[in-house]
């Protein structure tokens, strides 16, 4: 469905994508996992024709991207991280506008609006101004806008950032349901629990390169590293990211927990002391049961350390 060969993207002197190779099959929920700045968003932007690239080849639905961008875009959807619609329009006005600019009309328009509204359970909200929707409702409208052309490929750029756990689960189950429709989903996140929850295949991207790609189940089976999960309260995702970057073998698991890829009491104790110093309260501590995080830490730490 998507084939990328030797893709290179430079921003001035900085290499954002470094001869990246990737292949995504039709009908899979594909997780693109990587730390901040790894190149996930750049890759998604390139696949949607929003950013150009210097070298490499991309084929989507068996069509080279450059020449067939318009054709490809008609069959794809890009769901940006932050809600990208009009706050001063109602839910239905937003949906009609985005259907209109894609020149979806007649019975197709009716069907597609029904589809987007039903999947995202927006029926009771249609007359409401988007500005007054809750964070979760905005995320649902954001997804609905992307479904108006009934896309075959959907790109999600960190769709659960900044929302409560209930809404997150809700959105994840919606995304999972696309598999039943044989849609291909490319899902970027740095929350590994989410990737484990919904994805069939995973690629770990670091410093502009794919460091590992494969079936999620087989990757997890290969990985067997002990870990500790620290659950936190009174922190923000940004603060957590900042904190994790300063630590060894530590990664943000979700918006309220960190994972450390070892069980050495001295190392864990040191991290707990530093959390206290930063006034981040610890709610609980448990042994890690997921292995994607440890694999991620191992792969990305090794890459990053080799740079130092």
């Amino acid at each position, binding site marked *: 469905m998507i084939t990328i060969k030797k893709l290179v993207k430079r921003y001035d002197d900085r290499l954002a994508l470094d001869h990246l190779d990737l292949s995504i099959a039709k009908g899979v929920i594909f997780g693109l996992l990587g730390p901040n700045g790894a190149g996930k968003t750049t890759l998604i*932007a390139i696949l*949607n*024709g*929003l950013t150009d690239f210097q070298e490499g080849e991309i084929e989507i639905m068996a069509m080279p991207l450059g020449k067939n961008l*318009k054709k490809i*875009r*008609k069959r*794809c*959807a*890009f769901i*940006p*991280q*932050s*809600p*990208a*619609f*009009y*706050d*001063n*329009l109602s839910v239905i*006005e937003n949906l*009609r*506008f*985005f*259907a*209109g*600019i*894609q*020149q979806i009309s007649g019975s197709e328009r009716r069907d597609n609006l029904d589809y987007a509204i039903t999947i995202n359970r927006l029926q009771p909200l249609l007359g409401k101004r988007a500005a007054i929707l809750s964070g979760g409702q905005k995320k649902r409208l954001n997804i609905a*806008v*992307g479904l108006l*052309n009934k896309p075959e490929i959907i790109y999600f750029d960190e769709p659960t950032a900044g929302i409560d756990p209930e809404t997150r689960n809700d959105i994840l189950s919606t995304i999972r349901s696309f598999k039943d429709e044989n849609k291909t989903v490319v899902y970027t996140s740095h929350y590994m629990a989410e990737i484990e929850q919904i994805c069939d295949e995973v690629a770990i991207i670091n410093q502009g390169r794919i460091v590992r790609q494969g079936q999620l189940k087989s990757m997890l089976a290969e990985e067997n590293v002990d870990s500790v999960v620290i659950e936190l309260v009174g922190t923000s995702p940004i603060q957590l990211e900042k904190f994790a970057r300063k630590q060894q073998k530590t990664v943000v698991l979700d918006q309220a927990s960190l994972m450390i890829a070892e069980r050495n009491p001295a190392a864990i104790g040191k991290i707990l002391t530093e959390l206290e110093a930063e006034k981040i309260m610890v709610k609980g501590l448990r042994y890690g049961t997921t292995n994607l995080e440890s694999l991620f830490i191992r792969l990305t730490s090794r890459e990053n350390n080799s740079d130092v």
Partner: protein
Amino acid sequence: MFKAMLIKEFILVLRDRHALAALFIMPAVFILIMSLALKDTFNSGRALSTYAVIDEDNSDAAVRLSELLRENKGFAQQAISGSEWKHAQNHDIHFILTIPAGFSRNLEKNETGGGAALCRLDVGAEVKENILAIFKLELAMAITRLRIETIKDELAVYLPETAQEFSGMDFSPDKMVDVHFNAMTGNEKPTSTQQSVPSWIVFAMFFIVIPMSTIFINERKQNTLSRMNAMNISIPALFAGKIAPYMVINQIQVWIMIGVGMFIVPLFGAAPLTLGNSPGGLVLISLGLSLAAVGTSVLIAVTAATVEQATTIGGIINILLGALGGIMVPKFIMPLIMQKVAAVSPMSWGLEGFLDILLRGQGISAVIPESGALGGFGAGLLIIAAMRLKRSY
């Protein structure tokens, strides 16, 4: 696609109370205020100045001089008693004309009494030089007419036939000079409404920068532009989706403001706006002006980083273009050098176009150069904006 963009832009503008105030209420209020404030400046029936006559001669000639002066409505004669004249300033009287004892005798002798003038004029300190010069000329004219009448009376005694030749002479200015205002139709005269409406229409049209930049910058900040890009909306299509709605909004502004000039302003006592002879000319010049306003607004929206920046820069640019272009201060009262500088402002081109139709009664061909220049200016700015946007779109 255009229909969707048109509907979206209209709904967003209609729900933005600040934009509505800037686009419709502000110019309507300006038109009303400026038409009323300048009403008397363009009213030929209103006196330039007031004066009083103190008759110390008590002669027929003095009474006749007073009558002759009253014929000119440009100066209003006010009656005051002899004891009040020293306090004339309190009565808002600018000139006190004293006709001294012996005036009639001196006039008959055609003398000025040993070098003294025939009469005395006391002038208020606030009176401008040009008003004084006009009044002195008026007074000299009245005295000359008085002298001719005196000569005619004397001739009637000794040379009746010659006196008869003088009898048909009429010295009233309207009989001597037939005034026509340049390019006005029929007996029309320029009014404050005719001057104010075009000015504030032009000014208001450029205020589309407020809703346009607010919507555009929010679209950029919220990634709606990226989303539209991913939905195959090209920059020309995006711009067309902006140009069309705002040109319609500008047309609505123009005709609402014209309606205010025709129907609301007269309710407050100022003259109603008359449309001239060329509605097509009005449409053409307003379309040209609209393209210039849209081009300016799109460039500001594309260049500015925040809504606050765009509305501040847009406001400053509008006020500068307005001040330069004769919106705030009519060009005809500017010094010559400033009138030449005014030609750099597109608002000046638009204003001249509107004045061609509304004030000078000209047709569609008169506004083709201004409309073309405005359209070219707008198109140029849109191209620059497209080039700038292309870097990030």
